[in-house]
C-alpha cells in the first residue's frame, strides 16, 4: 500500500467529495444520521415555504431564500465532511486495486511435481488448490508455503521495498496475493477464495464500504438524537408561546433556531471522525479490521509487550567471556567460537564476532578435521560440535550442567555464581563445556546481554501517566526478566511465558475489568490474540495469527502497539472535543436568536441581544451561517484528529475543556458578530 502522506485537501479527493455530498442527500442514507436528517427535513420545509412565498408573489423573500440556501449548505457540508474522509480511503483503495491486476496462476495437479502445471486465471483458483511461483511471478492468492524458500517483494501491500523471506514451515510461511516472487521458487497452497483475500478485505476496509458503527459511536448518536428531540420540543412549543404573547414566528425562523440548537457540528462530523481514525491507522501502516478495534485501542488498560523486538533490540549480544578457574579467557573464546559455528542465530553470530577480538578469525566448517554439528534442539537445549575426540557444548546452565554431570564431571561453584550474577543483571548466561578424551569440564560462561531500545523508558513513563500498565512478556527466567524489566521501566513482567501463561494473564486482567492489548505473529499466539481486546498481528506472521488479530501491522513492528493506542485515544478525544464544542455553542446561539424572534412582540427583549447584532434578520441569518461554516472549518480537525500529548486524564481534560468547552462558548459569540457585520457590509440584510 502506498504509504505516501496525502495532503489533507488533495484536489482529486475534493472533487470526488463534492459530487458525493450531493449523492449522499439520498434520504435512505441521511436517515442513518438522525441529527442531519432533521436538518434535511427542515431544509425541505423551508424550501416549501419559499416556494409558496414565491408563488404568492410576496415581496422580501430574500431573507427566506438566504436561510434556505444556508440550511441546504449545512446538510451538504456535513455530507462533504463524510465524503472527504471516505475519499482518502477510496484513493488508497484505488492504489491497492492496481496490484490486483489480472494474473495467471500455475496450478499443480500433484504438489510434489513442480514441473507439471497448468496455467489458469487467478480468479479461478479455489481454496485448497496448489500453485507454484517462480521468479517474476505474481503470487496469485493468499496461501501457505508448503515447499521451497524464496525472497518476496511485498511492497504492494506494505510499502516496504526490501524483499522478505518466505519459506515452508514455521512462522514465515504465509504469503499474500498480489506480492511478487523475486528468487527461487515457492509451492503454495491457496487458503482464500477470490474476493475473500487479504487484499480484497483491505480494499473494502480502507474504502469504508462495510463500515459499521462502533459501540461508542452508537451511544453518541443516541445522545445527539436525544438532544435533538429535546430541542425539537423547545422549538415546536415556542409557537404557542409566541401566539400567547401576541406574536407568531415564521417557519423558516423556527427551523433556523432548531438547526442552530441541535448538535449539527458533531452530528455532521461524527462519521468523518470515525473514518478518519481508521485512515490514520492506515497512515501508520496498520489495517484495522473493524472500527471497534480502533476504539478499544483508546480504552486499553494493559499492554502486553513481547520483550524481544519491542522492549529490547531484536537480539541478545555476547559482551563478555567469563572463564572458569584454570581456563584462560582466550581458550574459552576459542571453544565458544567453535561451539557457535553451527549456530546461525544472531546470538550465535555475536559470539563468533566477540571471539574475533581475541585474535581468533572466523573458521569455516570445512577447516581441519571433519566436524559433526550438533544443532540446538528444544530437548537438549544445547548446541555444539563433535570433532573426533573433542565434544564442545554451549547452552543453558542447567542443560550443560546436566550434560557434564552425566559424563561424571561437575560445574565449579565459581561458574554457578557467575551464571547467577549474569542472570541477576538481566543478561543471559550460556555455559560452555567440553569433553576431550572422555574428560568433561566446564570452561566458563558467555555473557549475552539484551539491549533495551532507546527511549522506551520515557514511553513507558508516558503510558503510566495515561493510566496504562505495561507488562513485558518473555521466555527468560525470573531473574533475567526482572532485571530487564527494571532497566526498561515496565510495570510488570511475565517470565518463562508459555502461550498458556499469556492466555491466563489476559484472562486475569480482563476479569479485573481491564482491556488488554498485545501483539503476536506465531500460530501459538493465535488463541491469545483472539482473547485480547486489541490484538495487533504482524503482517509477517502466520495466517492463523493474522486471522485472530483485529489489527494488522504491515510493517510488523511490535513497538507500534503504543502508537495504535495513541491513535485510538486521539479518535475518542476528537469525538469528545467536538461534542463538547457543539453543545457549548448553543449558549451564544440562544442569545442571538431568542431576542431576534421576539423583539417585535417585546421590544424590551433587545436587552438580551448582548452581541448588539444589527437586526432580527441579520441575527438569525448570522447564526445559521455560523452554524454551517463551523462544520467546514472543523473538517481538518475531524480528519487530522485533535492534537494531544500523553498525560494524565486530569491534565488532558483540563486542556481540552479550555479549548473546546470554554472556546465553544466564546467562539460563536465572536463568529456570529463577525458574520453579522459582514452581512450588513454586503447589504444582504
Amino acid at each position, binding site marked *: 500500500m502506498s504509504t505516501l502522506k496525502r495532503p489533507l485537501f488533495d484536489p482529486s479527493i475534493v472533487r470526488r467529495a463534492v459530487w458525493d455530498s450531493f449523492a449522499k442527500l439520498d434520504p435512505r442514507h441521511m436517515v442513518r444520521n438522525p441529527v442531519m436528517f432533521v436538518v434535511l427535513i427542515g431544509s425541505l420545509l423551508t424550501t416549501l415555504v419559499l416556494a409558496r412565498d414565491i408563488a404568492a408573489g410576496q415581496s422580501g423573500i430574500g431573507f427566506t431564500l438566504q436561510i434556505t440556501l444556508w440550511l441546504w449548505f449545512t446538510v451538504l457540508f456535513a455530507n462533504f465532511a463524510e465524503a472527504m474522509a471516505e475519499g482518502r480511503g477510496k484513493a488508497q483503495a484505488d492504489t491497492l486495486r492496481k496490484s490486483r491486476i489480472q494474473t495467471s496462476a500455475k496450478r499443480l495437479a500433484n504438489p510434489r511435481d513442480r514441473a507439471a502445471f497448468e496455467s489458469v486465471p487467478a480468479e479461478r483458483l479455489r481454496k485448497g488448490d496448489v500453485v507454484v511461483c517462480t521468479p517474476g511471478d505474481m503470487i496469485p492468492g493468499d496461501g501457505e508455503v508448503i515447499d521451497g524458500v524464496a525472497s518476496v517483494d511485498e511492497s504492494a501491500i506494505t510499502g516496504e521495498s526490501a524483499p522478505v523471506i518466505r519459506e515452508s514451515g514455521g512462522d514465515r510461511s504465509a504469503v499474500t496475493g498480489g506480492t511478487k516472487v523475486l528468487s527461487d521458487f515457492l509451492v503454495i497452497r491457496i487458503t482464500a477464495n477470490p474476493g475473500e483475500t487479504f487484499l480484497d478485505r483491505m480494499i473494502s476496509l480502507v474504502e469504508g464500504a462495510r463500515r459499521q458503527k462502533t*459501540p*461508542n459511536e452508537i*451511544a*453518541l448518536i*443516541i*445522545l445527539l*438524537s*436525544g*438532544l435533538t428531540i*429535546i*430541542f425539537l*420540543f*423547545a*422549538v415546536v*412549543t*415556542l*409557537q*404557542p*408561546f*409566541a*401566539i*400567547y*404573547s401576541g406574536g407568531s414566528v415564521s417557519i423558516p425562523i423556527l427551523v433556523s433556531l432548531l438547526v442552530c440548537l441541535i448538535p449539527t457540528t458533531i452530528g455532521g462530523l461524527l462519521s468523518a471522525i470515525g473514518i478518519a481514525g481508521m485512515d490514520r491507522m492506515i497512515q501508520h501502516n496498520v489495517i484495522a479490521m473493524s472500527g471497534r478495534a480502533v*476504539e478499544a485501542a*483508546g*480504552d486499553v*488498560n494493559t499492554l502486553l509487550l513481547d520483550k524481544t523486538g519491542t522492549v529490547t533490540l531484536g537480539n541478545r549480544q555476547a559482551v563478555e567471556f567469563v572463564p572458569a578457574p584454570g581456563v584462560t579467557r582466550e581458550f574459552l573464546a576459542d571453544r565458544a567460537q567453535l561451539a557457535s559455528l553451527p549456530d546461525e542465530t544472531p546470538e550465535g553470530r555475536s559470539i563468533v564476532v566477540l571471539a574475533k577480538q581475541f585474535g581468533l578469525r572466523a573458521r569455516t566448517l570445512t577447516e581441519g578435521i571433519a566436524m559433526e554439528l550438533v544443532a540446538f534442539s528444544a530437548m537438549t537445549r544445547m548446541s555444539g560440535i563433535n570433532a573426533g575426540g573433542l565434544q564442545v557444548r554451549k547452552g543453558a546452565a542447567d542443560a550443560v550442567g546436566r550434560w557434564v554431570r552425566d559424563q561424571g564431571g561437575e560445574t565449579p561453584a565459581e561458574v554457578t555464581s557467575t551464571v547467577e550474577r549474569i542472570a541477576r543483571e538481566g543478561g543471559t548466561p550460556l555455559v560452555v563445556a567440553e569433553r576431550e578424551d572422555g574428560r568433561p569440564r566446564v570452561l566458563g560462561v558467555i555473557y549475552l546481554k539484551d539491549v533495551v531500545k532507546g527511549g522506551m523508558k520515557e514511553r513507558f513513563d508516558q503510558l503510566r501517566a*495515561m493510566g496504562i500498565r505495561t507488562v513485558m512478556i518473555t521466555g527468560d527466567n525470573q531473574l533475567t526478566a526482572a532485571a530487564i524489566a527494571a532497566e526498561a521501566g515496565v510495570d510488570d513482567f511475565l517470565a518463562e511465558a508459555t502461550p498458556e501463561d499469556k492466555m491466563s494473564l489476559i484472562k486475569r486482567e480482563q476479569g*479485573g*475489568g*481491564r482491556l488488554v492489548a498485545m501483539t503476536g505473529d506465531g500460530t501459538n499466539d493465535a488463541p491469545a490474540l483472539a482473547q485480547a481486546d486489541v490484538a495487533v498481528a504482524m503482517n509477517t506472521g502466520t495466517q492463523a495469527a493474522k486471522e485472530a488479530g483485529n489489527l494488522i501491522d504491515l510493517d510488523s513492528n511490535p513497538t507500534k502497539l503504543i502508537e495504535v493506542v495513541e491513535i*485510538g*485515544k*486521539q479518535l*475518542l*478525544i476528537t*469525538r*469528545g*472535543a467536538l*461534542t*463538547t464544542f457543539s*453543545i457549548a455553542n448553543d*449558549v451564544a446561539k440562544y442569545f442571538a436568536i*431568542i*431576542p431576534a424572534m*421576539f423583539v417585535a412582540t*417585546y421590544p*424590551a*427583549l433587545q*436587552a*438580551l441581544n448582548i452581541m448588539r447584532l444589527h437586526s432580527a434578520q441579520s441575527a438569525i441569518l448570522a447564526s445559521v451561517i455560523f452554524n454551517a461554516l463551523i462544520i467546514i472549518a472543523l473538517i481538518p480537525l475531524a480528519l487530522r484528529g485533535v492534537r*494531544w500529548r500523553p498525560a*494524565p*486524564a*486530569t491534565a*488532558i*481534560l483540563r486542556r*481540552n*475543556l479550555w479549548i473546546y*468547552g470554554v472556546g465553544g462558548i466564546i467562539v460563536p459569540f465572536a463568529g456570529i458578530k463577525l458574520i453579522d457585520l459582514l452581512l450588513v457590509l454586503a447589504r444582504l440584510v
Partner: protein
Amino acid sequence: MTANGWLQILFFAGVVLAITKPVGVYIVRVYDGSLRWLAPLERVIYRLCGVDPEEDQHWTRYAAGLLLFSAVSMLVTYVALRLQGSLPLNPFTRVGVPDRQAFETAASFTTNTDWQSYAGETTMSYLSQMMQLAFHNFTSAACGVAAAVALARGIARRSGGKIGNFWVDLVRGTLYLFLPFSIPLALLFVQQGTIQNFAHYVTVTTVEGVKQVLAMGPVASQSAIKQLGTNGGGFFNANAAHPFESPTPWTNFLSVFAIFVIPAGLTYFYGRMVKNQKHGWALWAAMFVLFAGGVTTAYWAEARGNPIHAARGVDVVASAGNPGGNMEGKEVRFGIANSALYATVTTDASCGAVNSMHDSFTSIGGLVPLVNIQLGELIFGGVGSGLYGMIVMAVLTVFIAGLMVGRTPEYLGKKIQSREVRMAMLYVLIFPAVILTFTALSAVSPHGLAGRNNAGPHGLSEILYAFSSTAGNNGSAFAGLTGSTAYYNTLLGLATLFGRFAMMVPMLALAGFLSERKIAPESAGTFPVTTPLFVVLLLGVIVIVGALTFFPALALGPVVEHLLMGAGKLF
C-alpha cells in the same frame, strides 16, 4: 440585604454540611440491613404481605413492585377521597372530593408532589389528612429513596441486573428512616407551639370585631413528614406560613432544614455505597453551588424590591423598623432573608412547602424557584429523586466530556454505552417534554388561559410554573393560577405521574444495566469524578442540557417581565 439575613443563611448552610455525614452513615445502615431493632415488626410485615426479604430483584421486578405499590395506593386514596363524606373522623362533615380533583390529589401525593388545588382546612376530613395524605407522605418518600438506593446498588456492584428488594427497601425506609426522624421533629414542633389536636374549629372575634373561624387539627405530625419527605402538602392552605403550623423562628428553621436533611445525607450514603466518598462530596458540592447561587439571587432580588416602588418614594432600604425590599406575599414574622431561603430550598428539593407566596416575588426572585425546579429537582432534590437525578446528570457528564480524556466513557468503573445513554436521555427528555407540551397547550387553549390570575408574561409564568412544579414533583405553586378546574386537575395530575414514573422507570433500567457491567479499576487515565473540575463540568451539563431547554419559554415569561419592570410596566 442585611448581615443578620446572611448570618441566618450561612447558619443554615453550616448545619446542612454538618449533618451530611452522620445522616449518610445512618442511611447506609438502614439499607444494608444492619439496623435491626425493629426486626420483629419487619418480619411480621413481610409475612403478612408475603414478601421474601431475601430475594434480590431484577430491575424489572423492582420497577414493577414500585409501580404496583404506587398504583394501588393511589387508587385507594382516590376512592377514600371520593367517599370521604361517609367515612369516620370527619367532624365537619366534609363531602367527597370531586372526581378530577380527587384524581389529581391522589396522583400528586403518590408521586411525592403534593400539589394542592384545594385548601386543606375546608376540603379534607381529619381521616383523609391522616390516613391518606400523610400515608403517602411516608410511602412516596420511601419509594423515592428506595429508587435512589437501587441505582446506587446498580452502580456499586456487579449483579447481572439485580438491584435489591423493593418491598424491603420500602418497609425499611419507612420504619428506620422516616418514622424515627419524623417523631422527634413533630414533638419539637409541638414544643414550639405547633398545634396537634382533633378539636373543633374555634370561632373568635378579632380586634376589628369580625368573626373568624380558626381551623384546628393534627398539624405537627403532618408537617414533620411533609418536610422530611420533601412532600410539601400543607395541612392548611397557607402551608408553612400559617402561624399554627410554624409559630416561631425555630419552627421555621427546623422546617426548612428538615427539607435538606435526607437529600444531603444521601450524597454521603452514595459515596459510601460506591466506595468513592470524594465523589459523594463532589455531588454535594455541585448541589451546594446551585443552592448558593439560587439563594443569593433570590435574596438579592427580594431585598432590592421593586424599583418602580422605590422610584415612587417607597422606602425599600432595610432598617431597624423596616424590612425593606419586596414584602408582598411574605410573612412579616419571617422577613425577606428567611422567605428567600425557604423559597430556594423548597424548590431546590422537590418539597414545595412554602412560607411565602412565590407569585408575589419580584420577577427575578420568582425566576429562581422556577429555574430550580426546571434544572430537574436535583439541588439536593427530593428525597431519593434528587440523588438519582444528579447521578443521571453525572452519567451524562461523564459521557459527553469523558471522551475528551481519550477513553470510552466510564462512570465509577462502569462503561457507559448505548443502553445506558438511551435510558439517561429518556430520563432527561421526558421532563421538558411534559412541561413544555402541557404549558404550550395551556397557553393557547381557552381552558388553560381561563385559570390565569394575571395577563401577559406573568400569566405565562404562572402556567409554566404549575407544570414545572407538577412534572418536577415539587408541588409549590406560583399561587396565581386557579388550578381547581377539571382541565388543570387532569393535566397537572398527569404531569405529576409522568414526571415521577416515566422518569423513574428508565432510571431503574439504567441501574439494572449498570449492574450488569464489569467494574474497571481506576487509573491515571480514568476520567476524574472527584475533582473541582468535574463539579464545574457537571454544573455546565446541568445548566446547558437542563436549563437551556427552557430558555425560550423563560424569556417570554419572567425574563421579559423583569425587563418590562425596568421599563416601568407591571403585571
